[in-house]
């Protein structure tokens, strides 16, 4: 057999060896797998395409919200003694996108830093931003409608939450959103009397002068208003214009008449005696007959007021006329007014004529003169008929309203041609009003940096708001944090304006800058005090060196030309499944900027405010810093830029003991785990308010823990405690989705 075989050798037919087949399979498999790997790439491309749509939507929303939402936070204090006393110079009020929008009503929340540090990205951009103090943000689940979160219907999951993003590029230095030492503009309906306001009785008010005559100045406490006092800020002593006090309240002493017997009181003229000569107690019972419920106002010199009446109305006009002539008489430009027995003395005047004052820095006097005269004279139409058949009565068409002259501060008001009496008619009143409105509007438009005249509530315009900025190139102001124990040093940049501020006057909240006199409890002006007014009058800040509180005007750049690229920042979006981490809800919030806490301005302990005349020794005790932390009301609808950005979804206590899936609503009796669902916000202080106070009746948390988000938050807002599958030791990689450039403005401006 073997021989046959040998004789007829079989042709050699060898197949692939197993090894060759294996190699072939490897090659084939490699090819197949390579092809198969293209499929997930396609899927990924589709996913990224979707994220780009999300990013486009979110970027559009952010730009819209940044530019179109309100910049008001009415619940905060806007004035202090020094720049660091209010939030105006702080991050919370900066006109930058992330500062504006990282708020519970505006839709972007910072990722917990510990979580953000686990995310890799191209060029390590995310970690670089974090290392520079920046935040990576995620989106709130709902669109930013600004409406009450509690009342919104529960929405399905929002895909945009899968995006994370940041604001890249350095922000421009912004203008000051508020000027702490005087938060201009002050606004009042125009025409108006001298401004007055509710004010706490504290150590920054000048002491009332109780002597009739030149040194008189007073404020008043209403018995039904507790600690709120009525302070005539605008006519306060050592403000711009001492004559204005006559228009507000002045005990008239006739220098040419014998003095009244001892113990007598002089009649008061001006706005306050007319409008506020009577107080009432707000009794609701019918058992107390009128007028037992009514009491006269007691002025600082002991004079009793009377109810509004014709006499006090005429007294108001008398004061306003005196002020008008005191300011305008030297020019003689309005000498045709106040005719004697000649109705319509103003009939030859065009109310829309230009200022008669040729010196621009004096024009405020013309404006103020007509402002007060218009307001006072219109009062007459409530008391005097247009036409009256009884010749014993005044009227405003034929006989006029008779205003006697007044001699105050050595100046005597008078009628046309030097006659002693002044008559005012219907036509005059209409002219005064139109002239006042015209001059006010002219003044506002022409002199945005002349602060002698408050701005009009009934016609606010853009130029009411001055453009101020911090001077970063002059030595800062230094001092200490009010109420800090022990004393904490503080510093703040000096403000500068584009041009010297004229007639800045005093602050209405802190008319005596007591901080500059070592917070003296004295109610007299301490010697050497640097009043706000004195520091900025007449362009003192034009000096190259800082003067008083102002910086160097040469450092002002807000109005300087700029290149578009200088104001370009970037929103960078990534896709990352950050909610897959096991602790994505229980991690503490990213650090909340301290400026997000609405801290009250400097205050003193008021004691009993219902004192008349005031007992000044009651209010010398400073409120501590911690007390100031409890002085502000946490009102959502009036605090847009404050509190934790995650405020609505914050946990109120440590949730680590609770299993995944625990519902956050309806547990623990009346209280909930999530701040959004805390019932009855009116019955308790907000759980994040205060320095270290336990929320009344609430678990074991403290307000500072909640405010800072130390317990985490329901970050997907599904009202269930969630934990993802990924352990915290795993790193994930974020895929770049897109970049969007946007304009970074320096000045707050709302588009509509």
């Amino acid at each position, binding site marked *: 057999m073997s021989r046959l075989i040998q004789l007829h050798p*079989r042709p050699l037919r060898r197949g692939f060896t197993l090894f060759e087949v294996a190699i072939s399979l490897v090659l084939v498999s490699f090819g197949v797998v390579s092809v198969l790997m293209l499929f997930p790439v396609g899927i990924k491309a589709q996913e990224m395409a979707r994220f780009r*749509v999300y990013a486009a939507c979110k970027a559009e929303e952010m730009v819209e919200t940044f530019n179109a939402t*309100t910049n008001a936070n009415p619940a905060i204090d806007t004035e202090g003694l020094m720049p660091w006393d209010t939030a105006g110079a702080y991050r919370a009020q900066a006109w930058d996108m992330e500062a504006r929008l990282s708020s519970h009503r505006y839709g972007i929340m910072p990722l917990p830093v510990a979580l953000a540090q686990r995310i890799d990205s191209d060029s390590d951009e995310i970690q670089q931003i974090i290392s520079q103090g920046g935040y990576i943000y995620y989106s709130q689940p709902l669109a930013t409608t600004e409406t009450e979160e509690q009342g919104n*219907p529960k929405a399905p999951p929002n895909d945009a939450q899968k995006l994370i993003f940041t604001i890249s590029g350095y922000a421009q230095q912004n203008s000051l959103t508020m000027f702490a030492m005087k938060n201009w503009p002050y606004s009042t309906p125009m025409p108006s009397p001298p401004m007055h306001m509710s004010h706490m009785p504290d150590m920054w008010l000048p002491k009332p002068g109780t002597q009739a005559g030149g040194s008189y100045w007073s404020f008043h406490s209403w018995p039904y208003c507790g600690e709120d006092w009525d302070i005539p800020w605008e006519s306060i002593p050592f403000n711009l214009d001492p004559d204005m006090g006559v228009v507000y309240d002045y005990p008239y002493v006739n220098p040419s008449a014998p003095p009244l017997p001892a113990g007598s009181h002089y009649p008061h003229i001006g706005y306050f005696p007319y409008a506020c000569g009577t107080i009432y107690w707000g009794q609701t019972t019918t058992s107390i007959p009128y007028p037992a419920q009514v009491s006269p106002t007691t002025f600082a010199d002991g004079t009793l007021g009377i109810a509004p009446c014709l006499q006090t109305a005429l007294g108001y006009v008398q004061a306003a006329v005196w002020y008008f002539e005191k300011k305008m008489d030297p020019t003689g430009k309005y000498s045709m007014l106040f005719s004697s027995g000649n109705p319509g003395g103003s009939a030859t005047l065009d109310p829309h004529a230009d200022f008669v004052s040729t010196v621009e820095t004096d024009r405020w006097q013309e404006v103020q003169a007509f402002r007060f005269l218009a307001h006072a004279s219109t009062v007459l139409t409530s008391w005097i008929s247009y036409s009256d058949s009884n010749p014993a009565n005044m009227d405003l068409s034929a006989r006029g309203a008779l205003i006697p002259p007044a001699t105050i501060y050595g100046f005597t008001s008078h009628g046309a041609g030097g006659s002693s009496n002044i008559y005012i008619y219907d036509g005059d009143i209409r002219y005064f009003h139109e002239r006042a409105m015209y001059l006010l509007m002219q003044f506002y438009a022409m002199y945005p940096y002349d602060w002698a005249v408050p701005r009009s509530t009934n016609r606010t315009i853009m130029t009411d708001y001055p453009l101020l900025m911090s001077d970063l190139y002059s030595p800062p102001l230094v001092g200490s944090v009010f109420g800090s124990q022990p004393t904490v040093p503080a510093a703040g940049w000096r403000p500068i304006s584009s041009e010297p501020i004229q007639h800045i006057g005093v602050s209405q909240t802190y008319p005596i800058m007591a901080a500059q006199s070592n917070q003296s409890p004295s109610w007299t002006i301490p010697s050497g005090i640097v009043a706000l007014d004195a520091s900025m009058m007449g362009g003192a800040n034009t000096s190259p060196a800082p003067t008083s509180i102002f910086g160097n005007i040469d450092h002002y750049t807000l109005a300087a030309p700029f290149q578009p690229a200088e104001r370009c920042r970037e929103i960078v979006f990534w896709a990352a499944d950050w909610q897959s981490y096991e602790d994505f809800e229980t991690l503490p919030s990213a650090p909340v900027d301290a400026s997000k806490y609405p801290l009250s301005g400097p205050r003193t302990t008021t004691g009993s405010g219902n004192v008349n005349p005031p007992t000044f020794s009651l209010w010398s005790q400073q409120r501590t810093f911690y007390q100031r932390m409890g002085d502000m009301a946490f009102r959502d609808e009036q605090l847009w830029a404050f509190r934790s950005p995650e405020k609505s979804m914050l946990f109120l206590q440590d949730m680590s003991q609770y299993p995944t899936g625990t519902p956050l609503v309806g547990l623990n009796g009346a209280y909930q785990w999530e701040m959004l669902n805390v019932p009855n916000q009116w019955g308790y202080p907000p759980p994040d308010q205060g320095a270290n106070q336990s929320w009344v009746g609430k678990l074991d948390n403290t307000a500072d823990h909640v405010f800072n988000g130390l317990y985490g938050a329901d970050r997907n807002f599904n009202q269930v405690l969630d934990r993802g599958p990924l352990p915290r030791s795993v790193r994930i990689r974020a895929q770049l989705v897109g970049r969007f450039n946007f304009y970074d403005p320096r000045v707050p401006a709302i588009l509509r």
Partner: protein
Amino acid sequence: MAYHRTTNAFTLIELMISILLGTLILYTAFAGFRTASQAITIANSLSLENSLLRAGYFQVQNDLDFWTSLDDPNNTSNQKLRPTGGTWSVSASNTIPGNPFTPMSMLNLANGVKNITLRGPTIQPAITAGSPTTYGEIKPRPPGYLFGPIPSYSDPWEADTFFDPTVSYSPSDPRTWVRVNMAEKDLAYNGPGWDTNPLDANYGKQDYWGTTPLPYGSFVPPVTFGRYGLFSNLLPNTSSQPVTFGSWQIGWNLNFIGQAYSLPNSGSNPPPPSPPQDIPYMVTYKTPNLIAHTWYPNQIQLFLTLFGFQAMCEYLPPNAIYNFYMSQPSGMTGLQYAGAPNYNYTPTGGHEPSNEWDWGTPCTAGGMSRQCTQPGWGPYWGFRNWDGNQITSIGMYRQTYSTSFGYFNPWAPPDPNGEPGIFPRHYMHFDSDYTAFSGGSGPNGGELGLQDLLAHTAFEQSMLPLEPTNWPTVMTAVGRLVKTGHFVSVAKIRRLNPLTGATVELSFLGLGTTLRGARMQRKDPTYGTGWAHWDDDPAVMTSAPGPNPGQGNEPNLDSPTPQTQP
């Protein structure tokens, strides 16, 4: 012997290996196909979803710009917000309330008493064929105010009281300045605990000495700071037809509280106290002098009934104060006009009713519009919200920081409990902030009110009603409301997967056109349907219809009644 050739078969091992390899190949192929199939399916699904998402995105962007979900100019069946409100009236105005897309010409025709001209009283410059000034242009009033000395001055621009789409609200124009006394308010009632106000004209019924009731009326005027209706009013007043501004009885010399008082003068100090005198007399004001400013009051009154309350906020400038004065209507007493409620004279000084608000008169506090100032006055809580609980003048911030207005989608179904339909909703305000924290009653109060607002403004509609059943359903909505002075346009794209039932929503705020812009996009129905052509399409413009064929822009929904231009 036959040659026998041997043939070796695979060994068992070889066979097994072959089978294994074959299986591996088959498995690999199968797995590959399966993965490929799944991947393709997922990719196709994602692609489809993305396509629908993009389509939804473009849909809402298109809607943000063109408002087609509320009004389709090419489809008359989707113009439900164009008719007027019929006889439903919210004020004593003689206008007929309109809807957000009611053509101005329709309101104009329904309101023939109004003086409607373009570019002010003299049409400067004229809108004529070939003129560069056309319907779409908005310019400030030319300089040079036609004023003269008080009180005989007159300004014909003040009489141009209807909406003029060709003139802007220039802040330098004196007719745009608000002249209401914002510090004045109705003193009658301001909530519990305050109705013992002795300044209330109706409170004091006895004098200080306790026995002598005042004959009638009171001791201080109910309008404390004067009659601002003299400066600005709905009616211009004329010498031939003088109007009155209320009258009231007051005390001439009111020494009831203790100290005598007389006006100080240069001749003497005040006399010693004298017995008190209460000499009541009537103060009346009926003057032939012209009222200088009538334009602003008429603008406010007009917009209260023109397109709805949110439209009012959009059309008027952001610094507007929503209030105006009217002269004393016939049928009202002087005290009513002044804001004092009706009361019964009670010689013993009896107490007044707990609620003194007078709901039956159109004005108060010296002629201030009740609709503008009194919380809840009018149907469905009216225009004014309850912020501050005061009867006083306010602007957009206070009117919208705790409550909102909106534009309502006419396709949203009516509520089952008989709440108002789409038209009245444009004349309602809805709780939207701290008052919407929880609860609610009625269509617009509390949490329910906010949800009603959101559901009816951002009403989601299917983007593709005839889509295949296995496609993801895509719903889109653009809801428009005003909150804290912010004109919110919230866009929603909601996807429902028919296989999994999962719902995912993309919602965001969008940048879009204002209502005024949207109205100016639409052709005046007098000239047909569709979009208004503008001067960026000169080929079309040369043959454009309208009162002035060949002029630059076509008439749009804001154009007034067709009229012959000079």
